[in-house]
C-alpha cells in the first residue's frame, strides 16, 4: 500500500477528501460508526505520512505531476522535509482530536449535525494537507479557501449568538486575507508568467530588478494576507472570539493546526520564491522579527487579563505564534529550525490544553479560571495533563516546549541578536504568571471544611485517554527530541542554503 502512495502522493489528500464526503452516508446508516470511520481514516493517513517522513529523512524528495502534465503546465506536488513534517503533525493531532470527539461530540454539537461535522473536519484536514504538499501558487489559493470555509463551519457548528458573530468576523477577515494573497499571486503571475513555485523563482531572479515596487507590493500583500490568517499580532483580532466560542474539538484543531499551516505557506512563498537574501535586503525579515516579538509580549499580557479559560488559551496562542515568526525572522538555520519545531510542539501542547478545558467544562460546567479550586482532586487525569502542557508552555526542562525555546535562544545568539534570549526568558515568566495560578488552585487550594477525596475523572474513556496520550507525547519529545528536530533542521536547510 505504501508503494502506491509513494508513487502517487496526491492520493493521500484525495483519500481524506473522499472519506469526508462519505461521512454523512455512514452517519445515516450507522450512527455510532461515524466517529470510528473518521478515526480509521486519520490512522491510515498518519501511517502514510510517517512513511513520507521516513523517505525524506533518507534524503529523498518525491515529485508528482498531477494528471500526467509535467511541471510548468500542470500542478506539481512535492514531498520535501517541511511538507512531510506538516503532514505528520496534521495527521497526528487530528487523530487525537477525533479520538476525543468520538465521545465528546454529541455533547458539543446538535445530534443531527454530527455526520456533517466530521465531513467539514476531514475537509479541513484534506485542505491543510493539500496546502502542505502543493507546489503551485493558484492551487495553494484554492486550498486556502477550502480550509477557510470549513474552519468557519467548524466554529459555527455549535450555534448560538457568540459563535455566529465570531464566525462572521472570521469569515470576513479570512476573505480579506485570501484576497490579499490572491492579489499577490496575480501580480507574480503577471511578471513571471508561471504558477509553479520553482519556475516563478527562476523567472523572478532574472526580472526582479525591473520591478522594485512590485516586489515590495507582493511581499507586503503576502505578509498581510497570511498574517491575518495566521493571527500575527496586530492582525489577530478575530482569533480570541473564534477560538473561544467554537466547540472544544474545533478550538483544539483551529488553534493547534489551522493557524500554523498558513505560516508554512508563507514560509514556502517567501523563502522558495524570493530567497533569503532578498528578504534581508528589503527589511521584510526585520519587520517579521518586530511583529513576532510584539506578539509574544502583547499576547501574553492579553492572556493574563482574561478570566475565561478558553479565551486565555486563545490569547496564549497569539503569543506562541509570535515564537514561530520570531524563528522565521531570525533567519539563522538553528532559529528557523526552532520555529518549525515549535509548530509541532505548540500543536500538541495547545491541543492538550484546549481538550482539557473542554473536559473541565463538561464535568464541572465552570469556565472562569478563578473558580477551579481543588479541581485536581476530582479530575486528576485532566488536570495532570493540563499541568504537563502548561509546564511545557512555560518552558520547563524535560517538556517539549523547552526544546523549541532552547533552540530559539541558540538561534538568536547565532544570528547575532542576543537581546531575544532576554525576550524568551521574559515571555516564559509571563506564561508562568497566567498558567501556574490555575494549577496552584487546582491542587493546593482546598476548602478546610469539606476536604476533597481523590476520585478518578467522570469522563468517557476516549476523552481521558486522548488527554493522557498528548501529555505523554509532550514528555517523550521533551526528553528525546531527535526525530522532529532532525526533520525541522532538514527543512530549515532547504530554505537557507
Amino acid at each position, binding site marked *: 500500500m505504501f508503494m502506491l502512495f509513494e508513487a502517487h502522493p496526491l492520493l493521500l489528500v484525495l483519500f481524506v477528501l473522499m472519506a469526508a464526503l462519505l461521512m454523512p452516508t455512514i452517519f445515516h446508516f450507522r450512527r455510532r460508526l461515524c466517529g470510528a470511520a473518521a478515526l480509521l481514516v486519520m490512522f491510515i493517513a498518519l501511517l502514510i505520512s510517517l512513511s513520507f517522513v521516513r523517505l525524506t529523512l533518507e534524503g529523498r524528495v518525491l515529485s508528482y505531476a498531477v494528471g500526467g502534465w509535467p511541471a510548468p503546465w500542470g500542478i506539481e506536488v512535492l514531498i520535501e522535509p517541511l511538507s512531510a513534517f506538516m503532514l505528520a503533525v496534521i495527521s497526528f493531532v487530528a487523530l487525537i482530536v477525533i479520538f476525543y470527539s468520538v465521545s465528546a461530540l454529541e455533547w458539543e454539537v446538535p445530534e443531527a449535525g454530527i455526520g456533517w461535522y466530521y465531513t467539514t473536519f476531514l475537509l479541513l484536514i484534506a485542505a491543510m494537507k493539500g496546502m502542505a504538499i502543493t507546489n503551485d501558487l*493558484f492551487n495553494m489559493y484554492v486550498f486556502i479557501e477550502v480550509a477557510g*470555509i470549513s474552519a468557519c463551519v467548524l466554529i*459555527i457548528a455549535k450555534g448560538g449568538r457568540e459563535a*455566529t458573530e465570531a464566525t462572521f468576523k472570521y*469569515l470576513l477577515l479570512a476573505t480579506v486575507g485570501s484576497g490579499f494573497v490572491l492579489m499577490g499571486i*496575480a501580480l507574480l503571475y503577471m511578471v513571471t508568467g508561471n*504558477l509553479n513555485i520553482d519556475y516563478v523563482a527562476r523567472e523572478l531572479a532574472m526580472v526582479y530588478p525591473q520591478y522594485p515596487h512590485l516586489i515590495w507590493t507582493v511581499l507586503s500583500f503576502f505578509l498581510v494576507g497570511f498574517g491575518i490568517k495566521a493571527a500575527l499580532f496586530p492582525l489577530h483580532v478575530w482569533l480570541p472570539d473564534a477560538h473561544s466560542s467554537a466547540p472544544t474539538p474545533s478550538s483544539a484543531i483551529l488553534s493547534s493546526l489551522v493557524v500554523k499551516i498558513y505560516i508554512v505557506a508563507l514560509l514556502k512563498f517567501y523563502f522558495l520564491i524570493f530567497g533569503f537574501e532578498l528578504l534581508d535586503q528589503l527589511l521584510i525579515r526585520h519587520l517579521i522579527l518586530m511583529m513576532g516579538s510584539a506578539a509574544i509580549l502583547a499576547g501574553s499580557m492579553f492572556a493574563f487579563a482574561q478570566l475565561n479559560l478558553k479565551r486565555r488559551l486563545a490569547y496564549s496562542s497569539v503569543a506562541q505564534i509570535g515564537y514561530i515568526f520570531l524563528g522565521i525572522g531570525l533567519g539563522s538555520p538553528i532559529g528557523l529550525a526552532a520555529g518549525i519545531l515549535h509548530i509541532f510542539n505548540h500543536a500538541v501542547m495547545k491541543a492538550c490544553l484546549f481538550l482539557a478545558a473542554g473536559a473541565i467544562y463538561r464535568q464541572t460546567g465552570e469556565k472562569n479560571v478563578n473558580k477551579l479550586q481543588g479541581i485536581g482532586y476530582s479530575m486528576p487525569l485532566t488536570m495532570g495533563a493540563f499541568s504537563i502542557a502548561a509546564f511545557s508552555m512555560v518552558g520547563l526542562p524535560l517538556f517539549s516546549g523547552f526544546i523549541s525555546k532552547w533552540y530559539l535562544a541558540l538561534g538568536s545568539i547565532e544570528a547575532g541578536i542576543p537581546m531575544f534570549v532576554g525576550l524568551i526568558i521574559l515571555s516564559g515568566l509571563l506564561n508562568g504568571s497566567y498558567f501556574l495560578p490555575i494549577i496552584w488552585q487546582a491542587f493546593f487550594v482546598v476548602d478546610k471544611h469539606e476536604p476533597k477525596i481523590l476520585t478518578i475523572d467522570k469522563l468517557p474513556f476516549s476523552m481521558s485517554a486522548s488527554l493522557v496520550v498528548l501529555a505523554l507525547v509532550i514528555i517523550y519529545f521533551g526528553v528525546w527530541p531527535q526525530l522532529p528536530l532532525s526533520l525541522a533542521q532538514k527543512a530549515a536547510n532547504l530554505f537557507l542554503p
Partner: protein
Amino acid sequence: MDIYFKITANYPYFVAMVLFCIGIYAILSQANLMKKIIGINIMVNAIFLLLISSGNIRGGIAPLQEVGLSTEQLYVNPLPAALVLTGIVVSLSVTAFALSIVVKINEYYGTIEVNEILEIRSSQ
C-alpha cells in the same frame, strides 16, 4: 505627465487597483453587514479584473484549436480565464455562506447594523 501616460496605457490595471481599495474601504468602514459582503465582492472582482486584463491582447481571439491555426493571428492567454473561473466559484461560495450567517445574526439580534448589535450586547 509620465505617470499620466503610464496610467492611460494600462488603465485596466489602474481601475483594478482603485476597485480593490474601494472594496477594502467598504469592508472596514461600513457598519451594515450586507454592505461588508458587497465590499468583499468588489475586492475579489477587482483581482479577477486584474488577472483577466493581464492575459488579454487587443485584437486577440480565443485560442481554439481548429483546422489550420494561422501564425499571424494573435491569441488571448487562456490560463487567467481558467483561474478566474475557479476564483468566481470560490467567491460565490464565500458570499453564500456569509449571507446565510447574516440571516442567522438577524434572527438572533433583529438587526444587521454592527453598532446596534454592539449596543444590544453591551446592554445585556
